[in-house]
């Protein structure tokens, strides 16, 4: 019986898979295969990493909004794209289940870099200081600072092209900055983060927003931030809002708002380029694994035919090739993952943008690697089907 036998002894009493024997017998070929798969993995990881670095900031603002339901123009593809009339917000406030309904402005203003007098642009977040709509404490505690005329809060993580505003503010310098033709001053800082599409954000009051963009613009909201009564059913409230408000306004949950933003930026050419790069990496992997499996099958064709002749079915032999593919995928993924981790931290250091290995991305690449192996095996075994034992004689 099994008593007294160590687990290791029992493990060694299982037949060693033929796939592993074949692979481990030819060490050079195994090494080539594993480096090939790792290389393909690194390609894929880097594309996804670049992509994440580029797009990670795109949902910062919608994700930092503090609300349960959001009203946006039905045509709006991303935050700030389209507006709706402010009075509709008051109608929304009257819908049962809605506790508060607050205005949110999100616009682009021209910005003159005070250091080199070059004009660029900045993204303006505006709200009623008495009705905070963001879940960033540094903003909410400093809202009193923006009530004064032409004052703003500046994002310390803005790109340097806006000027060394944060350092100058920390050093106590109070330089006027030309925003949309008005001289404004920084009255406090907070950290939000920029991305490739937004150089930086400033937070101002709704009154200052009116000064910058005029009265007509101030009646046009980019989003309405709604909080619900405790216990209110969000889906029911959304349905009621859709019924009450004109068709041009749509009500979204927080997740839907973030998803809308993500899907818009993912369609940017840069996103497509990285998707393309990912597919290229995948194809490279398929070609490499296919080459290895094909030459393996080809070299052992007479042996496989012999196995067929002694009673192995086609299915059992195909399984050997698929097992080889799976072993290669699993073993090749590990060095690929480790190298990608190293390159990610290198990339983070070089760009200052945090490139993190997310579990989702890791799993995605791992399943891509498995699919890569199985696909290559499926192409390679067409050769094996032709291993006619009658030709061995």
């Amino acid at each position, binding site marked *: 019986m099994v008593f007294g036998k160590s687990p290791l002894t029992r493990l060694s*009493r*299982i037949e*060693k898979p*033929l796939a592993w024997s074949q692979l481990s017998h030819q060490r050079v070929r195994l090494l080539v295969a594993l480096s090939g798969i790792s290389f393909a993995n690194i390609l894929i990881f880097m594309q996804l990493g670049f992509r994440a670095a580029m797009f990670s900031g795109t949902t910062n603002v919608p994700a930092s909004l503090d609300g349960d339901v959001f009203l946006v123009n039905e045509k709006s593809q991303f935050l700030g794209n389209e507006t709706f009339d402010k009075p509709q917000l008051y109608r929304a406030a009257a819908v049962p289940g809605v506790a508060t309904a607050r205005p949110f402005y999100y616009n682009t203003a021209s910005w003159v870099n005070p250091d080199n007098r070059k004009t660029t642009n900045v993204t303006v977040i505006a709200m009623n200081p008495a009705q905070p709509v963001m879940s960033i404490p540094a903003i909410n505690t400093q809202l009193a600072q923006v009530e004064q005329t032409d004052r703003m809060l500046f994002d310390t993580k803005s790109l340097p092209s806006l000027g060394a505003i944060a350092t100058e503010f920390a050093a106590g310098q109070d330089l006027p900055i030309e925003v949309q033709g008005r001289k404004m001053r920084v009255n406090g800082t907070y950290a939000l983060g920029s991305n490739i599409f937004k150089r930086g954000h400033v937070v101002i009051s709704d009154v200052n927003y009116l000064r910058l963009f005029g009265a007509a613009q101030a009646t046009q909201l980019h989003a309405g931030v709604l909080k619900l009564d405790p216990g209110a059913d969000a889906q029911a409230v959304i349905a009621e809002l859709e019924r009450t408000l004109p068709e041009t306004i749509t009500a979204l949950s927080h997740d839907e708002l973030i998803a809308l933003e993500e899907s818009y930026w993912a369609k940017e050419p840069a996103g497509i380029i990285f998707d393309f790069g990912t597919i290229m990496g995948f194809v490279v992997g398929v070609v490499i694994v296919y080459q290895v499996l094909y030459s393996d099958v080809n070299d*052992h064709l007479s042996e496989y035919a*012999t196995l067929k*002749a*002694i009673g192995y079915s086609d299915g059992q032999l195909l399984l050997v090739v698929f097992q080889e593919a799976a072993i290669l995928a699993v073993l090749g993924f590990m060095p690929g993952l480790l190298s990608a981790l190293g390159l990610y931290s290198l990339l983070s250091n070089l760009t200052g943008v945090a490139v993190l290995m997310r579990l989702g991305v890791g799993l995605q690449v791992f399943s891509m690697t498995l699919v890569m192996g199985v696909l290559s095996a499926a192409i390679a075994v067409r050769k094996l089907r032709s291993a006619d034992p009658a030709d*061995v004689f």
Partner: protein
Amino acid sequence: MEPVVNSQNLHHAFGKGSLSKPVLLDINLAIYPGEIVILTGPSGSGKTTLLSLMGGLRSVQQGSLKILGQELLGASKKQLVELRSQIGYIFQAHNLLDCLTAQENVRMALRLQKSLSYDDRTAQATAMLEAVGLGHRVNYRPDNLSGGQKQRVAIARALVTQPQLILADEPTAALDSQSGREVVELMQRLARDRGCTILLVTHDNRILDIAHRIIHMEDGRLMRTENPAVAVI
């Protein structure tokens, strides 16, 4: 006594339509348990084709061929796979898997028998290698074995499942005369001990004496049957 191999009016042709070329013509042959039969004849005479038909490696086209009681005319793919596992094959090339040791190569044939435990397989494979005189080479890979030793491993692989029928295609062709002699004598002894039937295709005149019957083939027909005493002279 029921014959192990029984063919009646067996015809076989390669190619289709007007290009069809007959390779076997009206083969009638019965081989009984315990017999050692040598099939000989010039190359192209259809020996190998006949052997591969008997081994369930090709589909029978016309006529009747019964192996171990199984009719092969119209047999399904599954039935053929099943039949192959009951027959021991020995090839001209040893066709051992380079990545496996002698014992593991022999085990490959036993792996199909799910009823055997791991230990039983080890015991049977080792015993079989001892029987072919390779008890001291159990853990050697084919690269480290001589030609004769490799062919003996292949014989061990063919015999370890205790098949009632062994089909061998020029098993001595790649061997020097002494190794060749040793190999066929080994087959003869094992067949006698285990009561199995052997059909051996060969060109090799040096080994004709081990057979009970020698069948000559020419142009796809069985020409004449001799007894070895005549053939040796």
